[in-house]
């Protein structure tokens, strides 16, 4: 079956522009996660959704970052007024069960964001 998909795969933005990154989780998966992976680093947690509810947004770096999952399936990560330090790969993951019960997160291919 289809895995987690993300679009676009690559995004180049000028500093100050707003961007929107999309994640399509595996159908039926309750939990959805966003991670940020800086160059040469491991992924770092940004936010977690259980269905449409955003239960944890503690990893979002600033109030310029906003995530939503209005119908409990597709999610969008929006970054306003992008800065160079926002350049990274943004990974989306989903899992079948609610977060604490989940033993495996399935990852998408990520969106590489470059801010010039």
């Amino acid at each position, binding site marked *: 079956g289809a*895995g987690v998909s993300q679009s676009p795969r690559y995004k180049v933005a000028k500093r100050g522009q707003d961007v929107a990154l999309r994640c399509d989780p595996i159908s039926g998966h309750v*939990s959805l*996660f966003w*991670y940020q992976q800086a160059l*040469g*680093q*491991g*992924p*770092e*947690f940004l936010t*977690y959704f259980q269905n449409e509810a955003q239960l*944890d947004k*503690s*990893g979002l770096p600033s109030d310029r970052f906003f995530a939503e999952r209005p119908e409990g399936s597709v999610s969008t990560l929006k970054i306003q007024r992008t800065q160079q330090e926002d350049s990274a*790969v943004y*990974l989306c*993951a989903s899992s079948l069960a*609610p*977060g*604490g*019960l*989940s*033993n*495996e*997160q399935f*990852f*998408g*291919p*990520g969106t*590489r964001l470059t801010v010039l």
Partner: protein
Amino acid sequence: AQTVTQSQPEMSVQEAETVTLSCTYDTSESDYYLFWYKQPPSRQMILVIRQEAYKQQNATENRFSVNFQKAAKSFSLKISDSQLGDAAMYFCAWKGGLNSGGSNYKLTFGKGTLLTVNP
């Protein structure tokens, strides 16, 4: 806060040989899971192997096995009969278990080890 440390930024192995990737972690929780993920150049993270902390037996998945030393907080990955397709970044990750306090859903990753397989 939990931390995961991978002390080997890069490793190389000859095809068909065995290689071990190191990982240590720090946590005060007793209920947790440990993972090894593979990230090829395509960037798609793939789960390689998982270990539940309450299990004493080391997990194995075909050519992949772990050496889980709970008291030492060590979780190394052994790849036997290395193949060219094993070349990738490997990340060690930690997640709290159902009975752990706080956020038991998010993964905490190490910085990764880049594995090169030489033909």
